[in-house]
């Protein structure tokens, strides 16, 4: 018993000293966090990077949503802060200020491609051909009827528009921690509200309230990832879910996609700019960590290479919509400044 006690004490002491010594050396693995939409792409590049460059370690990719990623990114400069924040929307001014306040001043934005946002329903259900105004009328708490703002009276889709199926309205949309939510708001709900012809004489604040207040009874906000949205659809086949195009693409056997303004979302229609609900994807590199964390610049350049995010590259196979080569060249030039 006694020897066991001494042994444990020795081990504790060793651990304490051992770890102290280890912290003195700096981290040699790139640490990434942020958007769950970007995560699959980022992880694939990380793995390929580790396999191709024998001298660098495979970067570690965490999730947490775009907002969560920026929060970690802006915690400061140093070993225990992340090097790259993945984002499905550009960084906000408030986030830049938070970053600057913590000493993160050299932030390099890298745009590497596009993603479409799709409405999908259970493969066994009815077909949907949606327009932004129909989506707005389905989810807004107050909608204009005969020039008056009234509490949303619609129960089924065909009450909004006879062309839609006779199916109870139920929508699963991404929670506010997701960058997807912002794009959904900007590209679908706001144009929908404008097209719905709100009554005259509303102040800007009132209009914003109408555009951002959703019915709680039929709209579910999903804070987790797309699998959670998919689980909702399986539980209630009447639900229409909001997904990333790449997620839908891998689950075409269970999901059916809706057209928006008559355009079917696909790699081609998003790349051509025909499908209205798409957004650029980004990652942000902490400039102050370049040269400190080995491989950071190489990783960024590898990410932007033709074989990865270019036309016909590895990421296209995983559902990324490549951006024109000129845009990539410009982004790379800005990064290397």
């Amino acid at each position, binding site marked *: *018993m*006694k020897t066991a*006690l001494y042994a*444990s*004490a020795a*081990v*504790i002491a060793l*651990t304490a000293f051992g*770890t102290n010594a*280890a*912290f003195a050396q700096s*981290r040699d*693995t790139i*640490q*990434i*966090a942020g958007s769950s939409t970007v*995560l*699959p792409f980022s*992880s*694939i590049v*990380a*793995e*390929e990077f*580790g*396999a*191709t*460059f*024998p*001298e660098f*370690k*495979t970067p*570690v*990719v*965490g*999730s947490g949503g775009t907002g969560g990623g920026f929060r970690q990114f802006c*915690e400061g400069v*140093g*070993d*225990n802060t*992340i090097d790259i924040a993945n984002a499905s929307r550009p960084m906000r001014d408030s986030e830049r200020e938070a970053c600057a306040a913590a000493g993160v001043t050299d932030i390099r934005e890298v745009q590497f491609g596009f993603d479409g946002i799709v409405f999908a329903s259970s*493969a066994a259900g009815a077909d949907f051909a949606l327009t932004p105004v129909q989506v707005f009328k389905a989810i807004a708490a107050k909608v204009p009827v005969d020039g008056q703002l009234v509490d949303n009276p619609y129960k089924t889709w065909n009450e909004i528009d006879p062309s839609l199926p006779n199916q109870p309205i139920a929508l699963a949309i991404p929670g506010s921690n997701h960058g997807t939510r912002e794009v959904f708001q900007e590209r679908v709900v706001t144009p929908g509200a404008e097209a719905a012809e709100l009554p005259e004489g509303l102040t800007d604040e009132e209009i914003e309230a109408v555009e951002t207040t959703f019915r709680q009874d039929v709209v579910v906000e999903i804070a*987790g*990832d*797309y*699998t*959670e949205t*998919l689980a909702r659809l399986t539980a209630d086949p009447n639900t229409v879910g909001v997904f990333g195009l*790449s*997620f839908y693409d*891998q*689950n*075409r*056997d*269970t999901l059916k996609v809706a057209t928006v303004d008559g355009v079917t979302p696909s790699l081609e229609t998003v790349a051509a700019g025909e499908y209205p609900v798409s957004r650029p994807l980004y990652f942000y590199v902490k400039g102050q960590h370049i040269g400190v964390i080995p491989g950071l610049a190489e990783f960024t350049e590898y990410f932007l290479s033709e074989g990865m995010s270019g036309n016909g590259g*590895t990421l296209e*196979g*995983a559902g990324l919509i490549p951006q024109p080569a000129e845009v990539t060249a410009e982004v790379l030039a800005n990064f290397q400044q």
Partner: protein
Amino acid sequence: MSDTTLASAAERRKLVRAGLGRRHLTERLFRGFGILAIVLALGFVGILFTDVLRKGIPAFMQSNVHLAVTYDPELLKIDPAPEQAAGQSDADFRAARLAWERKVAMLNWNNVIEAALRKAAPEGFEIDARQILTITETDARHRVRERFAADPSLLGQTIEIDLLASANTDNWVKGNIDRNLGDAQQQLSAPARALIDIFEENGTITQGFAWSLFTNVDSRSAPASAGLLGALMGTFWMMLIVIVLAVPLGVGSAIYLEEFAPKSRITDIIEVNINNLAAVPSIVFGLLGAAVFINWFRLPLSAPLAGGLVLTLMTLPTIIIATRAALKGVSPALRQAALGMGASKTQMVFHHVLPVTFPSILTATIIGVAQAMGETAPLLLIGMNAFVAAVPATPIDQATALPVQIFLWQGNENRNFFEPRTSAAIMVLLAFMITLNAIAIFLRSRLEKRA
């Protein structure tokens, strides 16, 4: 005299008989409820286990593609590997070798895989390059390249090699995706599906035990090769830290509190707080860990060290409480006998009391560790839910843990492939838990017999 007794006895008997039916009924009812409760409880557990087993067992088998790969010099235009020249320093040679390896990595290995697949396909089978490459997993080119990098003399030769079939191929072969769906809903193109069926018939695609589940780390670019090795090592490091820290600290504080500490208001407060700590939800420890270990002590993110410390905090109260209960249970006769023989208090505790409580402390420790092993929530908060494609060599390397890996796979977008994989990972975790608990029971019964 006796008459009245008889009468009252008869009366009493009558009274008892009248109530007998009701008493039997209550007893039968209670037994019935008891059985019902057990059936329900076992039923739920049974449903859970059958579901996990039904989904998970097929994931232990994996489709492999057996190919004859030719290292065709026409396809692989590469200089011979550098040899260490006389007088060349080791550093120079390493640099030259690294540059050569980089060049090898930049070659288009997919051409080699494609040629091998086409050779295995029937003559004149029409399928384009992109479609035929969807049959093997994307890591096939790395496997073939590694063989070449290790042995550059392979150039111009043909070797037989087993490659993993892609996740989508595996889904198709196992029927995880509905085979009757139309082309638009399938992941694989029609020619690729036809070729897979041919390969299955001619023995190019076979089913084998999924060793990759245990020998590989997590992967997103090659889902079929995703394994648990990284998570297992992460869990191992964390459990090591928990055992090394929580057991001596927990047992030590329990002994002091129970045997040596004066009974005062302060010890009362400490006791109440330890009991409260045991009831604190694990997510709170996670928040605490993120604030203290990551932000204040500046421990690395996603490292088993931080995770192990958080889990230690969580396990400590369990061990303290169990050890104290065990110490309380030791008969006073033993203590008095030891003290009566002139033993000091320390001798009494360490030579006589503690050995008797050893089985209980051991059981509590193992159960505490098993609990910590299955804990997920606090680990999410210290960044252990990151995608890590490397085996952690030390406790300060980034890693993930077994339960977190289950959480991550459950969120993977390739549902058809990862649903079974997730269940397989659950089975691995459960196997560990059951083993740990079995060891606890075995040790307890053995040691108790001896004590």
